[in-house]
């Protein structure tokens, strides 16, 4: 028996997607020869690969991911960061400061305090311990101005687009600096509040219509319209 659905048809958890010699990819699972969906999403058949593009998802940390988080606790050796995932991120002082650090002398809250928002990268995570973060790379660290918008982590690939097509368009059209965290948080900083507002609006539209086609063009159109109306 070959494929049981059309490409990009909506499936719900438990739907039988394919039977036979296929590979169970994202958001699917295998039970003997049968492949089922395990999330609500759009089914995609690519050669032997069967996958589901989830319509909603939670962020599960992975090494090398760029994430945006909020400091929730300062302790002796570093910070605990809420990264919108089941596990809290751990940023050690040595991964945030470029010079030696002594707990007796330095007060960590002078560098980052509760409530600060940071861009960080996941350097280690193996599900037995909470993910470790680092900010010792260019472009990482505390966010001091701009706005944060939140989308479902499942929509992040759509916000970036194929080879970055969507995100590049957004940056050009809105003239904003946009940092996309894999955990669903997006930081926007522009020259004016108005630019930031339009960028946030565009991202909201992408989230709502993520599972439809021809989205990049529609978003471009929306941004231009919004701009001319408020010019």
């Amino acid at each position, binding site marked *: 028996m070959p494929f049981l659905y059309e490409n990009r048809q*909506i499936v*719900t*958890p*438990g*739907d*039988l997607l394919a039977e036979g010699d296929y590979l169970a990819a994202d*958001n699917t*699972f295998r039970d003997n020869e049968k492949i*089922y969906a*395990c*999330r*609500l999403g759009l089914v995609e058949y690519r050669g032997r690969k069967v996958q589901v593009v*989830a*319509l*909603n*998802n*939670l962020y599960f940390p992975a090494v090398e991911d760029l994430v945006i988080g909020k400091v929730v606790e300062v302790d002796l050796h570093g910070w605990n960061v809420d990264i919108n995932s*089941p*596990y*809290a991120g751990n940023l050690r002082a040595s991964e945030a400061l470029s010079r030696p650090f002594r707990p007796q002398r330095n007060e960590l809250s002078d560098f980052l305090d509760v409530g600060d928002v940071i861009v960080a990268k996941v350097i280690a995570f193996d*599900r*037995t311990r909470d993910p470790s973060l680092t900010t010792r790379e260019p472009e990482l660290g505390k966010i001091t101005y701009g706005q944060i918008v939140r989308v*479902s982590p*499942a929509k992040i690939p759509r916000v970036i687009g194929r080879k970055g097509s969507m995100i590049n368009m957004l940056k050009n059209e809105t003239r904003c600096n946009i940092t996309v965290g894999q955990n669903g948080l997006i930081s926007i900083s522009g020259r004016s509040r108005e630019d930031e507002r339009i960028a946030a609006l565009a991202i909201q539209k992408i989230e*709502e*219509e993520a*599972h*439809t*086609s*021809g989205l990049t063009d*529609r978003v471009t159109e929306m941004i231009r319209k919004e701009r001319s109306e408020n010019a």
Partner: protein
Amino acid sequence: MPKKPKLVNKKGIRTDGRKLDEIRPLKLEVGVVHNADGSAYIEQGKNKILAALYGPREVHPRHLALPDRGILRCRYHMAPFSVDERKSPAPSRREVEISKVIREALEPAIFLERFPRTSIDLFIEVLQADGGTRCASITVASLALADAGIPMKDLVVACAAGKADEHLVLDLNDIEDKEGGADVPVAYMPNFDAVALLQMDGQLTIDEFKETIDLALNGCRQIYAVQKESLKAKYLAAKEETEEVEEE
């Protein structure tokens, strides 16, 4: 003793106008609680139930966390105004038991082992009760799970069947539950043909019992179809809208 009410008339019509093998009118809505990670709402006859789901998230208190898998915590609660006589808002023995039963019906459907050291917290609030709330709660809770993007083996759907006035009936309401001869709630995973919950009170012969289960499973399949549609509805609306624009 007041006279026992008649539950099924000569034509085989029940107190609320249904046929013997008919389920109550069903309305399901997904994503109704904005602050929750996943949520759903069900109206099944006069039942009105809200389910809100949080997590997977850190377990508090910490010692409950398991190193190899996540835990599911479930609270079934009836609002004080959900029944004729005010119900004390404190969790009763019955509510604690139903919470456990619902949790155990949902656990086999969730890939809890993918989220070690976390908990998934499920809150089920019965706003209006009219019999069969444990089944409706399971149906609505599995939608909340799917809405939150938690990986699941299958949706869980539940429906009761039982006996009223010597007739076997599907999806009992409150009077049929209280005055009838038997009540058999069944939770079911349709794609695996697996039963996740089976309870019974009252008396049935073995043949009647078998027939009742078939009836209940039939009800489950009907509800399952509605359940799937409601999950898709949230996203199909946006899709159709844009496709119309493109065609123009």
